[in-house]
């Protein structure tokens, strides 16, 4: 089973999607339940992989490896495998997908394609984390865009128009979906070119081979010095991933996409898709371009700091609850990048290891808390049909349970000690401090504002005078299904806050093995 466990994890969602497509479309409850049930299979398999991780055979730092012929003509194969880094991301993905599906039980329109696309999306995301072949990585990297595009385009928020030019208007969700797709694709062009170039030069796309051969390559290419070529390729990779993370100033697609996406889409977008970019940095950029990464790390750190600060400021300025949460992602992902930049700059040192551990843990944590936040925003939106903070207020007495969850999740996101966010942000700051002292100091300023916008969000919704428009009837408290979505997330927030070691151990192993 260990031979093809990853393939099973990878393709069950896709097959599940096909199964869903074959169900009768009128029977919506059936479709939803089947989709949920099918999405639990990869989660269980991922758990199997997680608990069997230590015992699985290892080669070149990766476990559960499987290699099959795929595109022999250009020496690309279907090569998958995991280490602690990717496995934690796989776990996050397979956990969030069922929750997101459960969260979207309220969707009434075209349920069948929605569920099928969602499952297909899961395959796309998992593929990125599992690939040990550069081309395969790119395949999944791109393919995940398609379902996401349709999720936003078709099931995004129904209201809102965006003026393009000369009075031509289009629905906001269309605009957002289009922007998301084209932005990301354009960002990937450089990646595509660089991958092609690597393939041409190395004659293989196998990452394990490339990790050995590419960084040590010397001489000249295309009439340029190899270092220059590598620098260019480094930026090609970095920009593609930076857009996905997103790092300031490449983040502008994110607020639109997050805001317009359906709740489940936002959960996955914030919970997993953003991690793809950070994962790309960790899996590809650092090992393939150690020298360039070192050289350009200060730039990355600067951008990360700016993301933290501007993300926080922008979040604070929002009136739209969902946009506020969206900008908070820019802010939090900034810490991930800061950790990565620090590690790249001072590779091999203890601080670097700490920063990296923090960054990876932050990826996981942000996945949990951002998904929770977006879900909670979605819950209130479903009831009030507005996301405008000014139209809310004084909800606490109406929805006490919801209020409690919102406060808890916000605190986790804020980084309150005892909850998960604190551990990872602390590790990042601790690791980055000796390396980029000034930037880290500045980003602490950002952290301050994180507190400000989180509190603003809470106070605008829960506290203050009750907006007369709302009462017990049109604003009922959170229901059981919604609780079921939040429960695992809350448990993880608390558990990771108290005992991060169970996850950190695995991550650390990978970090040490991979970057040590």
């Amino acid at each position, binding site marked *: 089973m260990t031979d093809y466990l990853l393939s099973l994890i990878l393709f069950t969602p896709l097959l599940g999607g096909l199964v869903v497509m074959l169900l009768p479309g009128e029977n919506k409850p059936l479709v939803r339940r089947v989709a949920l049930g099918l999405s639990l299979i990869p989660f269980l398999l991922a758990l199997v992989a997680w608990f069997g991780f230590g015992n699985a055979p290892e080669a070149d730092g990766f476990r559960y490896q499987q290699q099959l012929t795929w595109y022999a003509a250009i020496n690309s194969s279907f090569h998958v495998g995991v280490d602690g880094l990717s496995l934690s991301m796989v776990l996050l993905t397979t956990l969030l997908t069922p929750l997101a599906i459960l969260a979207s039980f309220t969707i009434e329109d075209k349920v069948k394609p929605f569920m099928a696309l969602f499952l297909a999306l899961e395959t796309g995301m998992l593929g990125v984390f599992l690939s040990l072949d550069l081309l395969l990585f790119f395949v999944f990297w791109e*393919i995940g865009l398609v379902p996401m595009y349709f999720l936003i385009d078709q099931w995004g928020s129904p209201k809102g128009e965006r003026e393009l030019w000369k009075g031509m208007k289009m629905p906001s969700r*269309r605009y957002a979906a289009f922007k998301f797709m084209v932005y990301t694709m354009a960002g990937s062009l450089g990646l595509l070119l660089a991958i092609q170039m690597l393939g041409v030069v190395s004659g293989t796309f196998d990452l394990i081979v490339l990790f050995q051969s590419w960084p040590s390559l010397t001489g000249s290419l295309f009439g340029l010095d190899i270092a220059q070529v590598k620098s260019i390729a480094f930026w090609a990779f970095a920009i593609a991933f930076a857009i996905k993370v997103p790092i300031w100033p490449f983040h502008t697609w994110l607020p639109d996409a997050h805001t317009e996406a359906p709740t489940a889409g936002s959960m996955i977008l914030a919970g997993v898709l953003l991690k793809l970019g950070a994962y790309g940095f960790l899996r590809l950029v650092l090992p393939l371009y150690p020298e360039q990464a070192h050289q350009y790390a200060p730039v990355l750190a600067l951008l990360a700091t700016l993301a933290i600060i501007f993300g926080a400021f922008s979040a604070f300025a929002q009136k739209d609850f969902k946009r506020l949460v969206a900008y908070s992602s820019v802010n939090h992902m900034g810490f991930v990048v800061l950790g990565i930049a620090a590690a790249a700059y001072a590779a091999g040192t203890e601080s670097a290891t700490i920063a990296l551990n923090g960054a990876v843990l932050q990826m996981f944590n942000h996945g949990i808390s951002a998904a929770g936040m977006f879900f909670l925003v979605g819950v209130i939106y479903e009831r009030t049909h507005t996301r405008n903070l000014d139209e809310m207020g004084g909800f606490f007495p109406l929805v006490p349970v919801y209020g409690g969850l919102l406060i808890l999740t916000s605190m986790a996101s804020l980084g309150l000690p005892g909850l998960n966010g604190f551990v990872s942000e602390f590790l990042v700051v601790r690791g980055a401090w000796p390396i980029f002292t000034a930037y880290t100091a500045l980003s602490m300023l950002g952290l301050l504002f994180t507190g400000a916008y989180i509190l603003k969000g809470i106070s605008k919704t829960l506290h203050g005078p009750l907006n007369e428009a709302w009462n017990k009837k049109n604003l009922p408290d959170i229901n059981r299904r919604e609780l079921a979505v939040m429960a695992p997330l809350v448990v993880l927030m608390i558990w990771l806050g108290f005992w991060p070691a169970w996850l950190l151990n695995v991550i650390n192993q990978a970090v040490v093995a991979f970057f040590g």
Partner: protein
Amino acid sequence: MTFPILSIIVFLPIVSGAVLLFLPSERRDLIYRFALGVAFLTFLLSVLVYFGFDIEGARYQFMEQYNWLPALGISYFVGVDGISAPLVLLTGIVIFTGVIISQRIDDRPREFFAFLFILASGVFGVFVALDMFALFFFYEIAVFPMYLLIALWGWKKTREYAAMKLTLYLFIGSVIALVGALAMYFASGLQTFNMLALEGAGFSASFQQLWFPFVFFGFAVLGGIFPFHNWSPDGHVAAPTAVSMFHAGVLMKLGAFAALRVGIMLMPEGAAYHLPWIILLSLVNVVYGAFIAMTQTDAKYMIGFSSVSHMGLVMMGFATLTYDGFVGAGVQMVSHGVMTALFFAVVGMFYDQTHTREMGKLGGLMKVMPFAGVAFIIGGLVSMGMPGFSGFIAEFPIFMGVWRSYPLVAIIAVISIVITAAYILRAVSRIFFGDIPAELEGHLHDIRPSEKLALGLLAFVLVSIGLFPGVMVPMIESGVNHINEIVHLIGGA
């Protein structure tokens, strides 16, 4: 004597076309069923050729040779290699789906199918011809029925103009190439049109440099190379659905294929001399085609220009003279063929109901014809070069080939991908999503099951190649390996 499958596949359509002309014209059902039966048979035969081709085996298979005009060394000589076998399959698929989609031809269906079959015979003939004369013979047979098909059954507004433009362009190309071919025939001193023999003719370098452009451009016109691409979008737009499918799907490959077979393979030194600047033309194709496609509001024009862009990639693959480039170009020919056939089929299906192809006047079609919508989206993803679909499998090696020879060209050409994504997404969202315009409300209905079958078949091919390149790429590689023996490609073994 072995079973003459290639001859059957070449002559079955044209003979059936002749038979069709003798059926009573009022028996429309009979005519359609007969045509469908023949098309299906042709499709099956093409599948047989494809799967009967032994990748490990000889370079050319299913060979047949009969004297035709021995005094001049002309023979009826056919066979397929790893490049042409997939193209035969492509033609089989397109003729089959094309006939299905033409069920609703009202005006003189008998003649329509007859001409379509003549066209198909010509196309098959070119793909399997191993004799240069036979290749020209079939090439011209393929070009001409296009005129009638477009002029008679095309879109009323532009059909006369487009049909004439197309025919003249292609005819110019073919006669220019013919002069080049005759020059080769006499210069070789071998007294034969047998291309296998001519491959070893050892033309002098100066001869090749002089004559290569004649042959290459003569054929590349049909491949839509810039600046001779102009006929193609007009032709696509004016043609009736099945003909657009054939035209973009197969005929344009004819040009690229013949340019390869007669141009590059017979005059490799000429190719090496000229292709470095020809790649710039193909670059213009790729990028400019995409930009122009972006500005179109008519769905068919958009697809027409996107074909210009995609065929540019085929030419670019050849022009790199690299192993990867050739493999990619080979796959791209099939991938693009199936993809555009799919596009035009879908456009034809909704046009039958909406009577407009203006994207601004359409919308919400997903609600009435979801199957067509999904098929169109799959085509769109192929067009964007989305991984997991055949377009990616084709474009990736082409770009790798370009990297090997001209890195800068790769960097510029890649822009087309994002532009393609933009116009495809826009088209998908305008045509299939949103609300159905008021004036169309109530006039629309789902497509027929047979049409779903056709679209399903086309989409299946695109996805299969995309997910499992192994179903086609090794065959094309075997073809490229043999080309490599003659042309000495960069990166070839």
